[in-house]
């Protein structure tokens, strides 16, 4: 139980810590809410006065002047209460929205600070669900929650005080009825919390599944896999349905229970009050004001219940959001002072050891020294660890052992940003984002002129393509615009050329480009590679024939190294690889 409690409280704590910067605004709104609540409490007292005056008038003449006075006073009170109420709401919605915005921003920023490892193990859909669904849920709770909670509490206390002041016996009996309600409320909240968490989790799960299925839809259809996919989906959907209705129902029970408590109180007051009034112990006005107090007393109770209801999905949601925000981050590097602005380009791998998962080392002991300006080609069978070398070089992943040095400085002692600034890179996976062609090419580099763009497009053979676009460089490209894989690759190559960094990485950069285009690209590349230390990974051995150094990898280690000629002469793995592209008499 104690653990459960902690689990419930922790996200709340984090959430409230999160609210701290909005504290002044929240305080003001609470003050306003409190004041509004005080007005509401004072109201019935005045009404009771009014009723008593009227009752006195029942038998004699009506004191209309006095009634008028009370009426005007009350009208002003209510009016002011309304203004305060809106003031409170206004501030709170503002705070809530700003906070949701900040949460979203932080999640987005967090994505950038997380090691790639995390994304290997978690689905994008689930992360996106945290960003939209969960933040939304928190926002909705906060928007109505905080304000209601405080004004309700004020109202509750105020009503209590006024009730005791008016009549102690009635107050006690009314409270007695309410205590039962409170106990029930807590029991319900506890049970439904479980289902809410389940619901939020299943929601994330279903989001992930939908994301995966929708993006692979074409393949699923090709293999007539719709039916099993639908089956799987229905299964998750069913468990979502289950937790959804259970949580909804249980939390929905809160309101009727509170209603019962209210009615009980109402009844007790009516009966008891009537008996007392019949005995002449209390004036009738007391009953009137008491019935109003009971409303004032149960109304906040039911509102608190409502907040608790909305609090539960919100707790579940904030658990997920803060869980994400609390994930392990990349090491903080603000204290790293080693900085390389211009490099010669000597790159050294010293006894590098690495595995994507700690229990499975895939690079065992990798050492190589590359001199400035050299072109290094890495070849090997698929899965030999070629891309991993790049991942380490760019510090997408950190080595488990050994060192990588650029110009003698271990890259771990530099900031990641600095390391990456030294490289321009073209990856196997082409990535085009929604935006204009210009944005896709220039990306985050500043001050690129059209002339530069023209030159680069000329170099990679995009000029014709650009000319056929209706808006030239300013044509919008989107996720599904009909770009062929080759065109995508050309764009990413052009992007790398514009970035113009001192070191170059080409990871299968030309695998989707036809050989004719490749020739063009290669010409451009060789200009690009001039004077730059370059790392080239390619299957097409024609691409790497001219490399200064060829590293042949197998199972994560270098098994051969040397120039094309040397390696061919050795008649080892490289020779076998190279010759396999020309199937002799096959």
């Amino acid at each position: 139980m104690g653990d459960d409690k902690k689990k419930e409280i922790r996200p709340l704590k984090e959430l409230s810590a999160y609210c701290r910067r909005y504290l002044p605004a929240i305080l003001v709104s609470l003050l306003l809410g409190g004041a509004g609540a005080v007005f509401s409490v004072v109201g019935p007292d005045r009404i009771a006065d009014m009723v008593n005056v009227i009752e006195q008038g029942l038998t004699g003449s009506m004191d209309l002047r006095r009634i008028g006075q009370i009426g005007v006073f009350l009208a002003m009170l209510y009016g002011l209460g309304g203004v305060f109420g809106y003031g409170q709401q206004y501030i709170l919605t503002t705070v809530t929205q700003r906070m949701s915005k900040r949460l979203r921003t932080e999640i987005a920023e967090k994505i950038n600070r997380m090691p790639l490892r995390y994304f290997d193990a978690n689905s994008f859909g689930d992360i996106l669900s945290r960003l939209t669904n969960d933040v939304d849920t928190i926002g909705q709770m906060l928007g109505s929650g905080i304000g209601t909670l405080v004004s309700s509490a004020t109202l509750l206390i105020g009503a209590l005080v006024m009730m005791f002041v008016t009549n102690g016996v009635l107050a006690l009996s009314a409270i007695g009825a309410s205590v039962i309600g409170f106990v029930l409320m807590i029991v319900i909240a506890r049970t439904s919390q479980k289902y809410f968490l389940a619901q939020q989790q299943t929601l994330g799960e279903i989001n992930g599944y939908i994301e995966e299925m929708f993006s692979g839809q074409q393949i699923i259809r090709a293999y007539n896999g719709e039916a099993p996919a639908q089956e799987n989906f229905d299964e998750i959907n069913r468990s979502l349905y289950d937790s959804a209705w259970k949580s909804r129902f249980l939390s929905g029970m809160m309101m009727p229970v509170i209603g019962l408590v209210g009615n009980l109180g109402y009844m007790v007051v009516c009966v008891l009050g009537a008996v007392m009034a019949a005995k002449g112990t209390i004036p009738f006005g007391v009953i009137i004001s008491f019935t109003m107090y009971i409303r004032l007393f149960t109304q906040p109770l039911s509102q608190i219940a409502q907040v608790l209801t909305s609090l539960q999905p919100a707790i579940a949601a904030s658990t997920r959001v803060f869980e994400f925000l609390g994930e392990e981050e990349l090491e903080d590097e603000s204290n790293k002072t080693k900085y390389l602005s211009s490099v010669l380009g000597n790159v050294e791998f010293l006894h590098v050891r690495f595995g994507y998962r700690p229990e499975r080392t895939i690079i065992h002991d990798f050492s190589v020294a590359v001199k400035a300006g050299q072109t290094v080609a890495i070849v090997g069978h698929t899965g030999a660890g070629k891309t991993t070398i790049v991942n380490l070089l760019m510090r997408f992943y950190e080595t488990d052992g050994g060192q990588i040095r650029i110009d003698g400085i271990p890259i771990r002692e530099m900031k990641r940003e600095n390391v990456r600034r030294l490289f321009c890179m073209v990856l196997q996976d082409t990535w085009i984002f929604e935006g204009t062609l210009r944005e896709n090419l220039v990306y985050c580099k500043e001050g690129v002129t059209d002339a530069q763009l023209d030159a680069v497009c000329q170099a990679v053979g995009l000029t014709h393509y650009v000319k056929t676009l209706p808006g030239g460089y300013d044509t919008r490209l989107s996720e599904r615009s009909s770009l062929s894989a080759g065109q995508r690759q050309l764009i990413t190559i052009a992007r790398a050329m514009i970035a113009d960094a001192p070191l170059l990485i080409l990871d299968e950069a030309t695998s989707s480009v036809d050989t004719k285009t490749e020739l063009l690209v290669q010409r451009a590349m060789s200009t690009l590679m001039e004077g730059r230390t370059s790392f080239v990974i390619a299957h097409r051995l024609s691409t790497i024939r001219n490399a200064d150094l060829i590293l042949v990898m197998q199972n994560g280690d270098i098994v051969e190294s040397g120039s094309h000629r040397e390696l061919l002469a050795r008649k080892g793995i490289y020779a076998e690889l190279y010759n396999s592209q020309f199937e002799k008499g096959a």
Partner: protein
Amino acid sequence: MPEYMSGITLLVQTPGSEIDEILQNGGYMLLCALGSMAASIATGYFAAKVAASLAQKLRSRMFCKVMGFYNEELGHFSTASLITRSTNDITQVQMLVAMGLQIITKTPIMMVWGITKIIRKQWQWSLTVAAAVLMISLVILLVAILVLPRFKIIQALTDDLNRVARENLTGIRVIRAYNAEKFQQGKFEQVNASLTDTNLFANRVTALLMPIMTLVTSGISLAIYWIGAYLLDGAGAGGMERLDIFSDMVVFSQYAMQVIMAFAMMTVLFVMLPRVMVSVHRINEVLDTEVKIKSGTQDGRTTERTTGRATERTASVEFRHVSFRYPGAGEDVLHDISFTVHAGETVAFIGATGSGKSTLANLLPRYYDVTEGEILIDGIRVSDYEIHTLREKIGYVSQKAVLFSGSVASNVAMGKRDATEEEVGRALSVSQSEEFVSRMAGGVSGEIAQGGVNVSGGQRQRLSIARAVCKNPEIYIFDDSFSALDYKTDRLLRQELERCAKDATKLIVAQRIGTIRHADNIIVLADGKIAGMGTHAGLLESCLIYQEIARSQMSEEELHHG
């Protein structure tokens, strides 16, 4: 409840009434309270069930619908938008229905009941209540007019937000490589800010509702007593009449409160309604999308013919004057393509980037329908085949290898659910995946992460080829599926494939001459037209474009190697 209160009021005001009677009335009140709770819980139960099952059905239909979409429909929405629509939007609807059902079943009864109770009392009071109701209605209307369009924008912005965030995730390596985190964050912030601003406005306006409701509720009871005082004053000093009005007044204020409260609950509903309407609209947009490509009725399973040997799984393919252009595009991507592939033959397509090779491969499984001309399999138009039958025949391997979370086996056996262990094993061995799969933790039942990110690009490709092999189709389509493989693997794989799927018809889109040089027929595409057709040797003689491609890949000496 207030009725009994009225009884009590009368009793209290009538001197000499018995305490027993008061208690009796109290008992009725208790019963009422319990009954009301039971009824509320029951409605809550049904509301929750109905809402959740509605959401479940909607999600299921939505999923089914989207899975039935073709590329054209998919292009119309975006994946991100489809995801928000099938989760966030449906959740909104579910919430409204759950709350709505509870309110709808309760409030009208409360309202009507309350109104019938008070309508016969003093008209001045009724008028006050009517005025209050009118005022609230006006406010709601005003808020709705102001807010409704904003909610539409909010949902669209949520889509945008999702899109940018997705972009950040899918491009994470590139973003980091270019130190573009700040740039991307800037893009995100832009959407985030406009989403927040729109939200702020909409919520600030909506926030008006509750204080106004409170104001009106409080005001109404004040007004009733105030007016009551004047009524009493006007009623003259007659004791009984005054007493009646007084008791009426007390009861009236209770019922009026009830009417207004009921109205307030409806207001909550109205506050939620606009946003939900937008969601409903977005869901319907998807559900109402007419899928353009219609499945045919031909059940072509009978084509499994018996020739010389036992049953042979093979089929012929014919393109007759096929032209294709993307919907809305001005120019043909493919123009007047005609060729025939006899059963069991291998045909290869080669050409420059953007020459239409992949589009051509996409037409056969009907990802798109031809704009002009027709495509025949075994003499039957592809559009006449029942779509599942058509796809049963085809083993399609896409340019970008797609794997799904699950195990190696579940990915490979996707096209053939009942595949035996041996069949899976055979497919893995043909696709040259045996070795790395055996090294994976768990082997064939080893875990594959979403998108296959835990295996390398080449391994992904080989598994997706295994998937096609396992299906044992009549026609293979390889859409540039060998590009991520090194030459040696490429060659071994093709040899194995040739051996085990000898009778199957194969269409290969490729860029490497080495991959296709042994094809029965090579078709060279340029700008969507056929620029040459023939064997490797023939094309080397006759086709200029082919010569260029060949020369760029091999030296003169290598060209004549074999």
